[in-house]
């Protein structure tokens, strides 16, 4: 009887953890997916670009800057870095009508450059990460104890995703992004300044990445140069495939699934083999549903 109750309490804690990890992945995947939507570009630089923003926030904070201000500057810095990258590494390729492979390879290059810049400035060591804006307490829900940090992370991530989804649906520039992700040339025919909107997409993608990255670092309490690739790019890519390429809803649901599976495997099966098991589940999943959970619902009729 006693153990059964304990099981329930643990389950609730794990569930909250799973949802907050999942929602952080969702935020990161959303930024990744925005870019994926436009050129079908596998943006391998996504994680490493936003890592720069996270480190800037971290450095500002430890040197005494107000944490909110540090976050804002970090988010803007991430966006600016991606704007520059887009201008010089992706746009010229797009203008020359390259295929999808070229910008992807370009992105791999950018990823290495960014990671090396981060390593050059901040070194390879792991730093403790705690912005101290969210009180890291536990609250009692029934008989279970749930961390406030996890709940806050979940709320912030969900709020930003809801705002973002609404902005895409309801604002003019949001609709322009949706159009461009379907057909760049036709969008230009509507008089949309596509270069500008595409730049905004990259900026926005990185901004969402930085926010996701900061939440990620807050959750685990550390930051180091590798957070972008292993925990960002690869997870976002996985979530995108999981959910269905080109579907924002898919990326969010895929990321949530990823977070949930990962956390439950970590809690109940093995922490050491967590990644191995998650990848195995992923591989089996794509064999069964190669187009993901939400395959492109509407095929263009010709």
């Amino acid at each position: 009887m006693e153990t059964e109750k304990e099981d329930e309490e643990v389950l609730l804690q794990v569930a909250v953890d799973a949802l907050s990890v999942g929602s952080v992945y969702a935020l990161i995947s959303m930024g990744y997916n925005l870019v994926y939507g436009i050129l079908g570009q596998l943006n391998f630089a996504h994680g490493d670009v936003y890592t720069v923003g996270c480190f800037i926030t971290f450095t500002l904070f430890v040197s005494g800057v107000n944490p909110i201000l540090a976050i804002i500057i970090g988010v803007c810095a991430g966006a600016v870095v991606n704007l520059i990258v887009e201008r010089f590494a992706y746009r010229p390729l797009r203008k020359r009508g390259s295929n999808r492979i070229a910008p992807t390879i370009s992105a791999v290059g950018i990823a290495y450059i960014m990671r090396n810049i981060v390593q050059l400035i901040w070194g390879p060591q792991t730093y403790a990460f705690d912005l101290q804006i969210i009180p890291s307490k536990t609250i009692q829900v029934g008989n279970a104890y749930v961390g406030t940090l996890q709940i806050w992370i979940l709320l912030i991530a969900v709020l930003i995703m809801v705002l973002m989804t609404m902005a895409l649906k309801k604002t003019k520039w949001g609709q322009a992004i949706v159009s461009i992700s379907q057909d760049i040339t036709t969008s230009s025919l509507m008089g949309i300044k596509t270069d500008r909107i595409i730049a905004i997409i990259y900026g926005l993608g990185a901004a969402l990445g930085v926010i996701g990255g900061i939440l990620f670092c807050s959750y685990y309490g550390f930051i180091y140069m590798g957070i972008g690739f292993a925990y960002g790019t690869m997870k976002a890519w996985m979530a995108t495939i999981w959910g269905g390429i080109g579907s924002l809803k898919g990326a969010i649901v895929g990321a949530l699934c990823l977070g949930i599976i990962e956390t439950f495997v970590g809690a109940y099966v093995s922490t050491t083999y967590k990644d191995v098991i998650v990848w195995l589940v992923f591989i089996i999943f794509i064999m069964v549903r190669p187009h993901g959970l939400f395959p492109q619902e509407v095929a263009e009729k010709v």
Partner: protein
Amino acid sequence: MLLEIKDLVVKYGQISALNGISLSVEEGKLTCLLGANGAGKSTLVKTLSGIMKPAKGEIIFNGENIAGMPMHQIYKKGITLCPEGRRIFPQQTVYENLKMGAYNRRDNEIQADVEKYYEMFPILGERKNQKAGLLSGGEQQMLAICRALMGRPKFLMLDEPSMGLAPKIVKEIFNTINRIRQEGITILLIEQNAKQALKIADYGYVLDVGYITMHDSAEKLYQNETLQKAYFGGGQ
């Protein structure tokens, strides 16, 4: 003349698609451009709308040379292309597609225009909240035309609007084009369906592998035997 093209050369790499063509479009008139596949018809409208850049030549629109301008600037002059293959945004709703057509407008009559096209094509009104990709081919073509009109163009180019559609729908499309013309919009119509196009057009040009081989009033072209043999085929 609303549009005057002088000695226009357009190339794909080393290969010329248009070898120095000249043509003009009179304001308020429907001009059609005929020709077989690969004649360069689409290349011409792609160049006029800025998708492609000319290698040589002038495109005078409303007294201004617009050759090589960026697409959004050309669009602002009042030139709109309704592209080949419809190219509606399949993931967006019918309503959202129409709104995209009015992307650059700042006035407060956008909603009124939307309603107007719902009235013109009730099916679009009925399906306004459905994804455009779910519409039939003919409905998508109507949507594509309305979307182009939402920008209130002075000059509308229609690239193969009847392509791949059932004869009954084709007729409806041509009726629609006629109606647009009556609203005073200058139209350049590209068609493989030469017979139908010449019936509603005022003037016509015939394009053949990058050269203009014939041009005359639509009436005269309609009666031209060489043209009849080459382009009317067994069609309706």
